[in-house]
């Protein structure tokens, strides 16, 4: 294999030998130290192979042996170079390719992150980028241990991080922190108090002593379930009270919006501005000016992937959506509809655990505002645990 490679590098010829004393010619070759191989007889002639440098020396020997030589085939690098010597573009292209390969191998082309389950991928990427590791960064300038340490500090949910730079790909392995499960305290003595004023509708006591009955009215912070239990022999025992006390609670809420409001209206016209990305550099492909300063831009990026390797070339597209600010005045019906939606959101998200028993709305226009006054009766659990203080 090595011999074949050396022969190809130096160049060799396949020749045909014929004449009076071919054996003498072979002997002369060996005496002169000229190496030939694969000498095979064929129909009164001989085929053989010889290095190009040797072939130039054998003319006098052939004359002495009375044989003639004819070249059948030329192989190897010198013939290849001779064939393409006038096509300088090829040489320049090969040199440029070599330079490009050398330069590009000094940069990180792609970052692969593994082990991210609950963490935000983009947050990790942003942390790495802030610490100097991003697609297109210069490899020799990276200090991996420092990036690992800084990233771990930047994202506290990472318990362990390892960065391996293999060729042009940075492989980032992450182990996330496992959070401790919340342990509910079921032993410390505590009372249960009311979180709101209301009329009790249902009582479910798991532990503790409760003297209340259905229909009893309670005020905020009044004792619902006591942790002090006294037995028949008048011994006092403190327990961790646990209960669900449902009560009808009255709540008033005011929602308001201005009568005139600024509204963003998107226009139908959009612009697209594409850029060619190479490593960190960007080359704009469209030079269209912006139509106005009121726009929202959406970026999208594409990268060239070859054989599952992301190459450092791609394009990015910025799409501009133009809008205009317009002042609109709500009609009473529109205002009512908007305010009722706000009220529905309040019922869902602010009083989500309670069930709405009754609701009533009162709509008014006061001092440039549309106001919706809402009166609710929620049925909800008003039990709140409060630790027992023993002085």
């Amino acid at each position: 294999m090595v011999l074949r490679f050396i022969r190809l590098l130096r160049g060799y010829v396949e020749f045909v030998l014929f004449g009076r004393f071919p054996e003498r010619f072979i002997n002369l070759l060996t005496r002169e130290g000229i190496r030939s191989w694969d000498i095979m007889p064929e129909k009164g002639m001989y085929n053989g192979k010889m290095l190009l440098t040797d072939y130039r020396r054998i003319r006098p020997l052939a004359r002495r042996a009375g044989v003639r030589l004819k070249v059948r085939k030329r192989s190897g690098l010198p013939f290849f170079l001779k064939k393409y010597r006038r096509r300088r573009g090829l040489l320049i292209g090969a040199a440029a390719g070599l330079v490009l390969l050398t330069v590009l191998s000094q940069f990180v082309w792609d970052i692969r992150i593994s082990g991210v389950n609950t963490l935000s991928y983009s947050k990790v990427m942003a942390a790495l980028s802030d610490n100097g590791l991003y697609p297109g960064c210069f490899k020799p300038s990276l200090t991996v241990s420092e990036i690992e340490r800084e990233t771990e500090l930047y994202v506290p949910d990472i318990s362990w991080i390892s960065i391996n730079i293999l060729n042009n790909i940075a492989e980032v392995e992450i182990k996330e922190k496992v959070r401790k499960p919340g342990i509910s305290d079921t032993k410390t003595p505590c009372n249960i108090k009311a979180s709101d004023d209301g009329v009790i509708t249902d009582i479910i006591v798991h532990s503790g002593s409760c003297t209340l009955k259905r229909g009893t009215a309670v005020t905020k912070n009044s004792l619902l379930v006591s942790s002090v239990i006294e037995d028949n022999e008048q011994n006092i025992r403190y327990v961790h009270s646990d209960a669900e006390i449902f009560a009808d609670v009255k709540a008033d809420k005011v929602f308001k919006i201005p009568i005139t409001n600024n509204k963003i209206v998107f226009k139908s016209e959009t612009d697209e501005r594409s850029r060619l990305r190479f490593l960190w550099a960007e080359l704009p492909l469209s030079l269209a000016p912006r139509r106005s300063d009121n726009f929202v831009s959406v970026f999208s990026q594409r990268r060239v992937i070859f054989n599952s390797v992301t190459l450092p070339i791609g394009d990015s597209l910025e799409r501009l959506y133009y809008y205009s600010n317009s002042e609109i005045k709500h009609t009473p019906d529109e205002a009512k509809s908007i305010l009722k939606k706000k009220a529905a959101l309040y019922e869902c998200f602010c009083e989500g655990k309670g069930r709405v028993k009754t609701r009533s709305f009162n709509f008014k226009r006061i001092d440039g505002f549309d106001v919706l006054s809402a009166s609710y009766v929620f049925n909800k659990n008003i039990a709140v645990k409060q630790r027992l203080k023993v002085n």
Partner: protein
Amino acid sequence: MKNMEQRRVQELNYKLPVLEFTGNRRVLTEGSTGVLKYDDELVRLNSRSGVITFKGRGLSIKCISPTCVIVEGFIISVEFTG
């Protein structure tokens, strides 16, 4: 291994050719001084102790140097003269 090498050197010193066969398909001849006759059925090599003749079918000289010849092909007989 060392003994074998020593023996080979000794044999060369006695001007005897060394023949190394691989079955009957390949023979390496050390100590040859030239090719006397060569075609696909007969290869005759000169050595200091005489002439060695290989007869066979499809014979060819695979490689040749001043003291060494490799003959390949289907070797039927080997003959020593002189």
